[in-house]
């Protein structure tokens, strides 16, 4: 019993200590972003690495999610004679929820894990220590550009996910199931509010970008510099990011709807 209490205490204290370390680290990274004006090229390079290279998985997933929404939505709406609202349902589901959330989950799996592994391996091969000894701050040179790239890329990827998802819904709803294209688009145009819906999605995906990128770079920087340590860190990035995205999604939805 004593042993269990001791272990529990140790785990809690270590967890709090790690959280504190992560907070200080992110503070340093945010401070480091101030110096990125002279390193704009690095940010562009990283936007390519975490954004453009994630495009394929985002677009393919977005298309299929949109198509499934088209199918499921049609089957439900047609029972109430509201099949013409399919466009609105697909668009709102994607823009408010599925776009930001699924994009963030995919981002954590594809780009977040890659960021952690890359930074962790740079640490294990003494590249970060080498930079420090060359009087170059690795937080400014390596971490900050990757962090900012993630924050910038996430809303753009989420927007593309939603856009291609709407096309997927259109493909199934209008192309296969015979919903009229006119109401499909016009109800969407009338029902989707720029500030209430689209900006809601943009805010969500920006927050998810901050959280996923923050977790990914911290886990990489804090990784035990061995192959096992990097593997564990990569694993933690995906798990923590996914849990954080799903938890924050509820909080952000509650806040924007003002229902809770």
């Amino acid at each position, binding site marked *: 019993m004593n042993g269990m209490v001791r272990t529990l205490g140790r785990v809690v204290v270590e967890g709090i200590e790690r959280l504190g370390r992560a907070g200080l680290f992110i503070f340093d990274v945010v401070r480091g972003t101030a110096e990125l004006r002279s390193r704009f090229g690095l940010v562009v390079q990283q936007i390519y690495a975490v954004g453009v290279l994630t495009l394929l998985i985002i677009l393919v997933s977005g298309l299929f999610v949109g198509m499934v929404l088209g199918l499921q939505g049609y089957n439900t709406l047609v029972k109430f004679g509201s099949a013409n609202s399919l466009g609105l349902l697909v668009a709102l589901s994607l823009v408010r929820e599925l776009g930001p959330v699924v994009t963030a989950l995919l981002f954590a799996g594809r780009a977040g894990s890659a960021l952690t592994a890359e930074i962790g391996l*740079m640490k294990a*091969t003494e*590249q970060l220590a*080498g930079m*420090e000894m*060359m*009087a170059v701050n690795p937080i400014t040179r390596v971490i900050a550009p990757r962090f900012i790239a993630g924050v910038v890329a996430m809303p753009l990827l989420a927007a593309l996910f939603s856009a291609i998802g709407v096309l997927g819904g259109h493909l199934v709803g209008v192309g296969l199931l015979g919903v009229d294209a006119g109401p499909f688009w016009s109800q969407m145009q009338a029902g989707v509010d720029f500030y209430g819906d689209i900006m809601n999605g943009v805010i969500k995906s920006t927050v998810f970008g901050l959280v996923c990128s923050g977790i990914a770079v911290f886990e990489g920087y804090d990784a035990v510099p061995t192959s096992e340590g990097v593997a564990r860190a990569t694993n933690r990035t995906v798990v923590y990011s996914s849990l954080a995205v799903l938890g924050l999604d509820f909080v952000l939805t509650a806040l924007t709807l003002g229902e809770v």
Partner: protein
Amino acid sequence: MNTSPSGSRDALVEIRNLRFSRGERLILNDLSLDIPRGTVTAIMGGSGSGKTTILNLIGGRIKPDTGQVLVDGISVPDLSTRELFELRKRMGMLFQTGALLTDLSVFENVAFPIREHTKLSETLLRKVVLMKLETVGLRGARDLMPSELSGGMARRVALARSIALEPMMIMYDEPFTGLDPISKGIIAKLIRELNRSLGITSIVISHDVPETCLISDYAYLLGDGHIIGQGTPAELQKSNSEYVRQFMDGLPDGPVPYEYPAGDYLQDLMEEAA
């Protein structure tokens, strides 16, 4: 034994009564040593004896529990991050793995510190980088990526990079480990030649006795967290100290025991598995 080498009044690095521990484990205890300017000074000792820790303390990557670390008269543990980075511009360090940036070519690796700290034009930068690469005999490898280099070549590129800003000192962390005899010879020759031609101070951390003795002017032997032997390589070779003899001759047993401390062997065997 914690005395300074004779005739080293002008020391670039001075370490005084230094104590450093990691958690419960005491790594360095009451360590004092001087690194004279313009010399190649070796710090030798077994694996895990705290040699690399000394380099990290000199470079300001870690802070001692107590004691002084002075580099060029500046107390390293007391420096702010900005001041530390200014000092590091005058230090070079060759890591055991080379620590080359894997996403940059050989040329860009050597150019890296110059680009970060100077505003040289591309024309001038190209000339400087090619000169540094020529110094280590790898001008022709400028377009290769680090993954295309052998261990010895990677270390030579890292050496070219560490002299890019023309430092006052270079710290070599196990420069001979994992290299074939030819590469070892090349690195040893480069350490000696760079020391002479650039007039820099070199600190070589190694457990490779023959190569290190060949190039060093003075050597410290580290054991149990402090200096247990020192002198010129010739003096160390003639030392009567048991520990020094064991290390220099590579004897399997001696003051450093062959066996890791354990309980009674018979009792251990007779005990039932827990």
